[in-house]
């Protein structure tokens, strides 16, 4: 099992390296000169040339990438020339917000998706199954920014139960904090549960047609045990891989939801950086998010290997 982990760990390094290269190359797509953009109105030919030398912009591309990478590896992702904050500080400040949002969304998504999937699979083709599959399908076609608008209109504008925007840290006022998070988390969760439900449902329906389920019935086991142990256990494995992929979608979703609900998370930091052309922050955040995503997927793969006995015993 250990060499399996080591092998996968080694395979992850080139991916991270390639991710850093791609992030760096995106920045070089900028038409015109970065120095000009940074100095903006105080751009006189002298200080533009001086800035270019400081940032090494006059060096060849590969040199700039290597020096940038050198800094990154030591944790220095550069400093925003708009806010003066380093990228790491800016991100560190905002991670708790995004993390709380994503965890709440994923939790609610699982809370709705898993039981519904099991109920649908138990009576596949029944009225409940057709209704839930239909509504899941509709929810999948509902972009999160549409759901956000609907929820705001309903709960904030019309019913005035919940605030449309605003934030207070959990440590300061847990209850108020949760009130701010209900609508954003619900928006994301409504986009999450259909994906979870459809994968688990179709997997369980396929599992329920396997011979070993027929044998479980022939052994006279209780229907609940057949559904929740014999059928759910093998199917839940694919759920683990789906959650890995969902996190990528979730990151995209948080970006929109944080912007609409004005939550100071990483997503909003990114959008803000684009509006203010704060290109150092933009590049730093994109790199961190991508690397975070690769690491999370690596962890999900390991979790899958540990859970599935067929892989755990090297029967790859």
């Amino acid at each position, binding site marked *: 099992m250990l060499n399996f982990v080591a092998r996968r760990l080694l395979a992850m390094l080139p991916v991270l390296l390639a991710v850093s290269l791609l992030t760096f190359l995106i920045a070089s797509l900028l038409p015109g000169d970065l120095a000009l953009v940074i100095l903006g109105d105080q751009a006189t030919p002298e200080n533009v040339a001086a800035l270019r030398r400081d940032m090494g912009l006059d060096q060849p591309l590969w040199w700039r990438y290597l020096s940038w990478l050198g800094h990154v590896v030591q944790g220095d992702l550069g400093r925003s020339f708009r806010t003066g904050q380093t990228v790491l500080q800016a991100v560190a400040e905002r991670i708790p917000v995004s993390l709380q949002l994503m965890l709440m969304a994923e939790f609610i998504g699982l809370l709705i998706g898993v039981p519904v999937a099991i109920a649908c699979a138990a009576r596949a083709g029944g009225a409940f199954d057709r209704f839930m599959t239909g509504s899941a399908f509709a929810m999948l076609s509902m972009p999160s920014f549409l759901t956000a608008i609907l929820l705001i209109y309903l709960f904030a504008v019309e019913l005035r139960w919940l605030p449309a925007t605003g934030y207070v840290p959990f440590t300061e006022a847990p209850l108020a904090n949760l009130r701010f998070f209900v609508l954003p988390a619900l928006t994301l969760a409504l986009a999450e549960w259909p994906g979870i439900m459809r994968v688990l449902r179709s997997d369980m329906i396929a599992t329920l047609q396997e011979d070993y389920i027929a044998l479980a019935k022939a052994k006279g086991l209780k229907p609940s045990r057949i559904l929740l142990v014999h059928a759910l256990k093998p199917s839940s494995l694919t759920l683990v891989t789906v959650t890995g992929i969902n996190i990528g979608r979730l990151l995209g979703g948080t970006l929109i939801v944080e912007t609409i609900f004005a939550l100071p998370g990483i997503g909003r930091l990114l959008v803000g950086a684009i509006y203010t052309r704060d290109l150092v922050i933009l590049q730093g955040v994109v790199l961190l998010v991508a690397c975070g995503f690769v690491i999370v997927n690596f962890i999900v793969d390991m979790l899958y290997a540990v859970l599935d006995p*067929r892989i755990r015993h090297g029967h790859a």
Partner: protein
Amino acid sequence: MTAPLLAIEDVAVELPTPRGNLRAVDHVDLSLQAGRTLGIVGESGCGKTMLSRAVLQLLPKKAKLTGRVMFDGEDLVRLEPESLRRLRGRDLAVVFQDPMTSLNPVLTIGTQLMETIQEHLELDAPAAKARSIELLAAVGIPAPEQRLAQYPHQCSGGMRQRIAIAIALSCEPKLLIADEPTTALDVTIQAQILDLLAREQRRRHMAMIIITHDLGVVAGRADEVAVMYAGRVVERAPTQALFKRMHMPYTEALLAAIPKLDTAPHTPLPAISGRPPDPTRPLKGCSFAPRCSYAGGRCQEAKPVLTSAEVSGHLYACFHPIRMTEGIEA
């Protein structure tokens, strides 16, 4: 003759398919005494597996079942789910064809054995575990103790089928249904599994139904044999009578079409011409008529009913039976 342990009375199974309703089992009557072995033989699509699923009440949801399945005095078709559930795995057990798919890949062998025992016999975990080890040893599994913690993918095909048999025998069933138990196994392993089944059946004087397409498997192992074609039992007889003095042309043709070890190479095989019956287009007359060399006018018109021949227990469904001693047409 005491009442049979199992009596299948006029059972029919109809399955809706995209190409129209398919009558997989077409009014079958079969019975089996306790402790005896019945072989059910037929080519694929003849309904033999669907018949076994009807007995076990494991038919697909959409299937329509008519008729009665009397088991130990109870009609399983009308038994309410809870008592049917308590009976399955306890008095009525099954072994499926493919050992690769009949064991749950993510549950240990121990779990899958002990859950059956604890479901039906009031044994606590240690007692159930001891019984599981004893069962695994009885079916010839080396080092049964360690085997409990292993997963199915760590065992060979033959080993898994032995485990499936151990599971089936775990609660001393009165009837074991073996649905093509050795089709997915190699010939040397098949011989070992068939011997194991025969030995365990003798030791536990258990009734057994062996379902197979291989006439050789039933020849040496079944007390009686029923031949199925297009959803119907076309002949049923004690093994000796069925192989030596069959009355149904299909049985004769089926036996002749099998290459034998003692026939010389390159001798043309008397093949059965035509195509297997299409279940969605049932024929008015005898379903074997289009391929039968003895078929006459009457065969196209009506379906021959199972009539008994001179040897008791020898039934056949044919208007022109062969090898009849009196030579009169039924």
